[in-house]
């Protein structure tokens, strides 16, 4: 809903910003891992996997997700199929 002013200016409702910002900051507070450290971890994981199988780095998704009060590192790494790799 929000005010007409907010809709015209495209300003996001502040409660939504608060929740989104908190969701990110709490993950970092709880894991004691910064965004930069997460990127480094991601690069290491990709380097190890690339040594064994062919992957598309652009399609990889590695993120910390909240599950209640627990955080988990979730990796979704699509593998390139052998057939496609040979023909392409």
């Amino acid at each position, binding site marked *: *809903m*929000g*005010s007409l002013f907010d809709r015209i200016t495209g300003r996001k*409702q*502040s*409660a*939504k910003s*608060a*929740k989104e*910002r*908190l*969701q990110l*900051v*709490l993950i970092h*507070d*709880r894991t004691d891992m910064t965004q930069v450290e997460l990127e480094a971890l991601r690069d290491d994981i990709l380097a190890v996997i690339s040594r064994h199988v062919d992957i598309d780095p652009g399609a990889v998704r590695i993120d910390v997700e*909240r599950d*209640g*009060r627990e955080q988990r590192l979730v990796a979704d790494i699509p593998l390139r199929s052998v057939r496609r790799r040979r023909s392409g």
Partner: protein
Amino acid sequence: MSAKIVTMTSGKGGVGKTTAVANIAVALASNGARVCCIDGDIGLRNLDIVMGLENRIVYDIVDVIEGRCRLRQAMIRDKRFPELYLIPAAQTRDKSAVSPSDMVRLGNDLRNEVDWILIDSPAGIERGFRNAIAAADQVLVITNPEVSAVRDADRVIGLLEAEEKGSPSLIINRLNPSMVKNNDMLSAEDVLDLLAVRLIGVVPEDETVVMGTNRGAPIALEEKSMAGQAFRNIALRMQGQEVPFLDLDNKGSLWARIQRMTGRK
């Protein structure tokens, strides 16, 4: 029966710990329970003035711990409830005057005197906080629907889990229903989703709370005060009753959802 020791903490200062302790204590006392509050904020004494007992102080918590008075001498009796007491903080000492093991000993000595011991923790996560939670059987974390308070509450909840104090219960204080309705304040549901702990109360922003502290008479018993009702409900939930959450926006839907989330009907 041995008393239950409940500590109120928040991480961030100014979210309403002291006011909540005073109001919940009055609500418990009005239900016939024997209650002793302990001001754990040594050097920044405040629970006495909120409860209206600032002129009755002779001995304080450090006097008891250092053996200058007996326990009963430091328990100031409330004006309205003969079985409601306060052990005030020392004003001219600092937090190092008390250790966590002192608090455990004090708590155990008090257990036979009353039914409930409510400890008001200082802000922060250092010595005063460690002292305040040392003897606790249950911890209540209080927060406001605001980014800094929620972040600090999360940090405190993490520390309590690491200390194996069990999962605390959450009080969301000073919720403004009309701001929530306009999507300009985190809802109780949002805060609960972020912090993922058990909810024990939502207290609306209410000017009668300030009026009560001005007079030194907590508003927990004022029939018409919404915040008073919220504090009475928290006391009943602490005593094991199932009480529905207040319908603060007269819509019901949000509160029905929270009740489902927390398993309360």
